[in-house]
């Protein structure tokens, strides 16, 4: 039977918001002004039903006659140039399953397949082929997953026969042939390829494709963290591996709240009343660079599953996002071949995080966006997730021989094949073409119901062990889970999205929304029942054994047989040399501005400082009803807070604090002090809202260029900074991840090293959310106190210097000892109820912090500098770990900030003006609303009014 097409449009007198949003972009992003209108039609296709049935579906489900009309098997958009954009065959459209379900609910029989897409009609003199091609290319179609529909499809079914398992004649390969095999596919080096060859030579047989792929996944940088585990020689001196140093620092800190560090899918710390909280932060740079929407979605979905798969199952309570892009107004000619424009990337990445988090019902409520020209070749996309679980079930589970290996959740398709190896490779001008299959569209609802089912199974004690299927798919999840026991897998039992997958594809597919569980055989029926109730598919895929072998079969044929010992410990250790030669010392002395008020506005409008409100609002940051201190507050609801505080146990006042810090600009100048800054900023953000520095744990994410000697030297210093920070503050790192592929190589030999990023995330607990403070000034006439140690001459890397074009090496060099006492002191003041408002100083300096506090309080401020202060340094220095604190006049009693540097810098005032004087002599005045407008403008330009 042929395909039935239903088209649905809004009635002509009603708005078409999809069309209007596109028209806005056509005008504002592309600058095409002579297209006067865009209308859209939703297109639904059904296979296996007749026209009458399609009409019934249209009436009951697809079109609401109150505001829409529909047509069956004929065009509906009138006039204009009409183009249809659809997902490519094989990219699963999440809507298809809902269409099939609803058809069944409506009693429609015979429906075999369904799909949906959208038609666009362009009107006006500008609706000519050349313009439409630009619109399709820049705004509508990402060729990785989408296409323009040229003709009515003959079928919606994907047919195919599974390929045979190939034997790779590795034993006879020369070095050159080994590397040919590795390139673009395995991403292993010669030594590693030789280790595989030797292993099979000793076994006296050649490997299957499945075996080679499994080894490549497990040994990938993404999964194996080869650089972090390598022994190092830095500037001629032997040093222990990076990972070992981080873990050793955590061990030494011996923090009483740490329950699980570096061993599970996320790090776990104690909460209150028998509960634990956990956190995980991941990068998703490579997929986001080529398909930002799908890439960001799978990034969020993956990190949520990491939290879900912690201990014996956790509930996700928060999501965070930290991005680095080139400025949105970067000229297209500056964007390297094979890369997408930063404005497109930013908008699509935000949309991906939004759609996944919102649909899962996870509040995204902490994050930041940073801009630097050098991210034009590859963005940095970091997503985090936090969860809560019973302390009694917070340790990583271990399967027992005889346990069943169960897979639950979504079906397996050809998605994301080679995701792990791909993300470990560098981005080149070929990346988009060769690795397109590494991205897919996430299905948040699939993951949500899986989470519901998993939590119920976990509550009932049915889970012996659980982990998510991420990079490397079943291969990685089962290979890891069964590493101590052994596992036998029956691949043909995996539910597939469509036929035709070869065994190795099923084994390594990175289809999202799947989790693997170890389940006692007598628990299986109950687990299956729970899954059925939640509409979650679950099957037994294998069984854990006691032979320490990874044995994978397909229809009775063994396609992979590897010794767990070789798989997990056969990877040749790397010995790497590193050196970092500090650039010659040079002091950035930016000098005073010509016009104070104008410069202040420019600092506020700098993309690293400006308001990110439009992004925050697109995220449902309030779902779960747990926000006790949300990302935005203040009288007009637009003032940013430093961290978020959640009260995840309903009716109880104990809270989780979440914050982060990163600064790619400082990291580029000096990896040690830049990294210290990131860690200090993360902790300071948490302390600023009231967290006890003794109750904070940290998560590291190193996003680094490919580790050549210089980059590795920088990485070594960043790790040293982390270790020193732990030593000084006692705050341990309990989870972390590295992504060492931030290098772009163009066809013409261009090499772009993306700025190194250390993102430090902090999370902790507070006993009473009532003892936390926001950043908005609470009233006029109060004291403004600067707390913390800083050397204001250390201006390099600051927004002020960057605007002035002053470069140097004099970045803030934090005094760790002082920092720790400042944290304690600020915390004590907040806990003592003396602090009305507190804001930590970061990008944009004291001036930006002061302005944001005024925005929230609808007040102004009068600030007086000492005669000896250099005003531009005083106002715009960006030393992390310093705070502006609002205190009631008379409350600044001796003892409040004893022993830490602090001084009263001024008062809040009733009028909405910030006035600055030095030694009593007026310097300048600026209107608070003028600053606010400047601060709000940039992101409004990117995301619309």
């Amino acid at each position, binding site marked *: 039977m042929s395909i039935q097409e239903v088209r649905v449009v809004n009635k002509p007198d009603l708005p078409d918001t999809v069309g209007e949003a596109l028209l806005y972009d056509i005008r504002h992003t592309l600058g095409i002004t002579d297209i006067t209108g865009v209308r859209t039609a939703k297109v639904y296709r059904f296979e296996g039903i007749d026209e009458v049935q399609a009409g019934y579906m249209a009436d*009951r489900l697809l079109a609401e006659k109150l505001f829409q009309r529909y047509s069956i098997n004929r065009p509906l958009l009138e006039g204009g140039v009409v183009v249809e954009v659809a997902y490519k065959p094989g990219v699963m459209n999440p809507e298809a399953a809902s269409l099939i379900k*609803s058809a069944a609910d409506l009693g429609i029989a015979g429906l075999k397949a369904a799909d949906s897409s959208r038609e666009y009609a362009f009107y006006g003199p500008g609706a000519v082929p050349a313009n439409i091609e630009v619109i399709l290319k820049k705004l509508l179609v990402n060729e990785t997953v989408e296409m323009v529909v040229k003709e009515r499809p003959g079928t919606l079914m994907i047919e195919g026969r599974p390929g045979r398992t190939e034997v790779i004649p590795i034993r006879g390969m020369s070095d050159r042939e080994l590397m040919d095999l590795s390139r673009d596919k395995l991403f292993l080096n010669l030594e590693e390829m030789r280790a595989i060859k030797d292993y099979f030579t000793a076994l006296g047989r050649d490997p299957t494709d499945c075996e080679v792929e499994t080894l490549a996944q497990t040994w990938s940088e993404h999964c194996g963290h080869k650089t972090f585990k390598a022994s190092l020689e830095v500037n001629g001196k032997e040093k222990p591996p990076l990972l070992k140093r981080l873990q050793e620092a955590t061990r030494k800190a011996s923090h009483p709240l740490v329950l699980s560090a570096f061993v599970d899918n996320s790090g776990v710390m104690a909460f209150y009343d028998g509960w634990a909280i956990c956190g995980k932060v991941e990068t998703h740079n490579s997929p986001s660079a080529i398909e930002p929407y799908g890439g960001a979605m799978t990034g969020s979905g993956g990190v949520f599953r990491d939290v879900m798969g912690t201990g014996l199952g956790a509930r996700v309570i928060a999501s965070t996002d930290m991005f680095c892009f080139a400025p949105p107004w970067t000229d297209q000619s500056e964007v390297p071949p094979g890369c997408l424009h930063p404005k497109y990337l930013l908008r699509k990445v935000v949309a991906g995080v939004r759609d996944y988090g919102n*649909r899962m019902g996870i509040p995204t409520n902490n994050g930041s966006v940073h801009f630097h020209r050098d991210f034009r070749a590859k963005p940095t996309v970091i997503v985090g997730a936090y969860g809560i679980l019973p302390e009694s079930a917070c340790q990583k589970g271990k399967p027992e021989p005889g346990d069943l290996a169960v897979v639950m959740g979504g079906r397996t398709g050809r998605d994301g094949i080679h995701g792990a190896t791909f993300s470990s490779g560098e981005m080149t001008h070929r990346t988009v073409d060769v690795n397109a299959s590494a991205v897919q569209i996430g299905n948040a*609802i699939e993951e*949500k119901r899986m989470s519901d089912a998993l939590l119920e199974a976990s509550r009932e004690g049915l889970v012996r062990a659980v982990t998510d299927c991420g990079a490397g798919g079943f291969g990685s999840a089962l290979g890891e889970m069964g590493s101590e026991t052994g596992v036998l897998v029956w691949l043909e039992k995996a539910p597939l999205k469509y036929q035709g997958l070869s065994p190795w594809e099923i084994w390594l597919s990175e289809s999202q929304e799947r989790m693997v569980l170890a389940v006692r055989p007598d628990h299986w029926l109950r687990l299956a029942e729970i899954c059925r*109730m939640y509409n979650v598919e679950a099957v037994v895929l294998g069984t854990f054994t006691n032979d320490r072998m990874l044995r994978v079969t397909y229809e009775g044929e063994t396609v992979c047989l590897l010794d767990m010992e070789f798989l997990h410990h056969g990877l040749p250790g790397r010995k790497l040399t590193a050196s970092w030669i500090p650039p010659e010392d040079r002091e950035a002395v930016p000098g005073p501005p010509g016009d104070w008020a104008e410069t202040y506005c420019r600092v506020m409008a700098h993309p690293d400082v400006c308001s990110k409100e439009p992004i925050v*609002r697109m995220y449902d940051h309030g779902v779960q009803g747990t926000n006790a201190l949300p990302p935005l507050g203040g*009288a007009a609801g637009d003032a940013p807070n430093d961290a978020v505080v959640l009260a995840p146990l309903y009716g109880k*006042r104990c809270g989780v604090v979440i914050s982060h810090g990163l600064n790619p600009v400082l990291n580029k100048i000096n990896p040690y002090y830049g990294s210290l800054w990131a860690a200090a900023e993360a902790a300071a953000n948490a302390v600023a809202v009231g967290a006890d520095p003794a109750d904070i744990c940290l998560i590291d994410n190193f996003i680094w260029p490919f580790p050549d000697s210089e980059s590795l030297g920088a990485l070594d210093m960043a790790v040293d900074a982390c270790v020193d920070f732990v030593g000084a503050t006692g705050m341990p790192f309990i989870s972390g991840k590295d992504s060492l592929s931030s290098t772009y190589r163009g066809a013409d030999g261009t090499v772009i090293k993306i700025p190194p990023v250390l993102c430090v995330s902090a999370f902790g607990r507070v006993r009473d959310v009532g003892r936390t403070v926001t950043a908005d000034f609470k009233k006029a006439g109060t004291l403004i106190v600067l707390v913390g140690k800083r050397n204001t001459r250390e201006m390099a890397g600051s927004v002020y210097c960057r605007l002035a074009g002053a470069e140097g090496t004099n970045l803030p060099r934090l005094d760790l000892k002082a920092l720790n006492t400042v944290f304690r002191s600020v915390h004590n003041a907040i806990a003592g109820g003396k602090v009305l408002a507190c804001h930590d100083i970061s990008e944009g300096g004291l001036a930006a912090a002061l302005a944001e506090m005024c925005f929230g309080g609808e007040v102004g401020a009068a600030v007086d500098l000492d005669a000896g202060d250099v005003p531009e340094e005083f106002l715009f220095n960006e030393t992390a770990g310093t705070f502006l604190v609002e205190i009631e006049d008379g409350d600044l009693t001796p003892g409040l900030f004893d022993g830490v540097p602090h001084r009263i810098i001024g008062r809040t005032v009733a009028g909405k003006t910030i006035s600055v004087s030095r030694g009593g002599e007026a310097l300048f005045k600026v209107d608070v609303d003028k600053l606010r407008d400047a601060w709000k403008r940039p992101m409004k330009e990117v995301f619309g009014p």
Partner: protein
Amino acid sequence: MKPKVCVLRTDGTNCDLETFYAFEKAGAECRMVHVNQLRSGGEKLADYQILALPGGFSYGDDVHSGKILAVELTSFLRDSLQEFVDRGRPVLGICNGFQVLVRTGLLPGRKLGDISCTLTNNDSGRFECRWVTLKVEESPCIFTRGLSGRVLNIQAAHGEGKFYTGKEQMDSLESAGQVVFRYAGPDGRPTMEYPFNPNGSLNAVAGICDRTGLVLGLMPHPERFVDVYQHPNWRRGGFEEPHGLPVFENAVKYCLEM
């Protein structure tokens, strides 16, 4: 005895925990019920005094927000749902739950299958999460007894919240007093101005009830403000009582008095 609340869940429901807590705090006894449990007969609506449809993205909001669940309810639970309503038991739909109620026809005409109003894409074309000011109108709604004339601060979070209907239907809703909540400006007066009216709703409608006042649907989330500290500005003073809690308390009170 505490009234029993059925908190209905399905694929993509995600405001269930906070809705559960809001009703429990208001004095009810809640139970999470999956729509499959109603379909299989393992749970019966008749065993409950209140039905709550929480927010979220039921079935991904595919096709239209709340549509797939609305079709499921009208296909499989038509009789038990109609009976529940006809027996005078309160029904509350929040956000996605409101979308479902409108798409089943329970709102505003309490007649399954009779769809006369809709909730469509926000005028801004975007999903938005922000605190809004709601004016409580004079209405027969049992959830807002004693609140009419008051101005509440509640968080809204949706992409498809624009209330729309034909002129006749709108006039009929107005004359019957079925508009329960309207978006208001800082002065407390109903407004069409963005962002105070976050979606461009006709007549600034944020929530409506049926003629009996027993079925209520609204886009903003009262369940997110049942403890004072849930408001972003409780530290600035002026929030002695959480504004969302009375909605749940009224429902519980109604059941206890029935």
